């Protein structure tokens, strides 16, 4: 079944406490070449038929993302990407 991926990330100017906490933890794990970490959501929608990406965008704007603080991108999943359970 065709899958659509909606990636939702906090807008760049919005504080990302999660990403910050992870970034701060990295040095103690011996990782010191990471300048910044941002954490968002990856949403996989599995469609029964051909998905209409414009409608998914509308959906993302209304339900999946919070446009006040988040940006999102919508795309068809490649065949190689990890599958959701059928």
């Amino acid at each position: 079944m065709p899958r659509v991926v909606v990636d939702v990330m906090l807008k760049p100017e919005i504080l990302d406490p999660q990403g910050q906490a992870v970034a701060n933890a990295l040095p103690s794990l011996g990782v010191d070449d990471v300048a910044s970490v941002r954490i968002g959501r990856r949403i996989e929608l599995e469609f029964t038929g051909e998905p209409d990406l414009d409608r998914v965008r509308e959906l993302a704007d209304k339900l999946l993302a919070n446009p006040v603080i988040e940006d999102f991108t919508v795309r068809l999943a490649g065949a190689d990407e990890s599958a959701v359970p059928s």
Partner: protein
Amino acid sequence: MSARIGVVTFPGSLDDGDAARAARIAGAEAVPLWHADPDLHGVDAVVLPGGFSYGDYLRCGAIARFAPVMRTVVDAAREGLPVLGICNGFQILCEAHLLPGALTRNGHLHFRNRDQVLRVETTDTAWTNAFHPRQEILIPVKNGEGRYVADERTLDELAAQGQIVARYLGENPNGSQRDIAAVANEAGNVVGIMPHPEHAVEELTGPSLDGLGFFTSILKHLAGAPA
């Protein structure tokens, strides 16, 4: 000499004071341990308290697991040091692979705080030997990510080997598989519990005194009673 129970404070630990109070009420000496200090200062047992270590960001317990103190705790636990993880402490123990399974977002997606009836399923651990078998106890539950999950085989093994320490009775507050509220490692020295025994140790502030049993258990255990 009274038993010395270490209580670890991570950045974001919240119930560390409560755990120390509970240990004292039970008759132990509470010893504060600091996440950045790998030294356990000769304590006889360790409590990993509830809270939101590192804000619970990424996954609950995921970052705390790498604290210097945890490296020592993990080694010592494998050697038999009794460790009790409460709520966030339970999550840390799972992340550190001292306990099987994982704790995930509550099925209803909300943080939930209520007084919860549990059934103690085994008294064969360092932290539950003061209860009587199948004792029903009332202690507060409060978490947003307390739904215990593991694969079916692990769950079967846990049941078969008596590693399920407590179950929720009545309404399951978070959707935990098989109503699991607490589990132990095989040796029974490491126990993780989602509800909060340290909040049920005083008449005035808790719904019962049932939580004290976990702390009197460890004293009994340390005094030489069979685990």
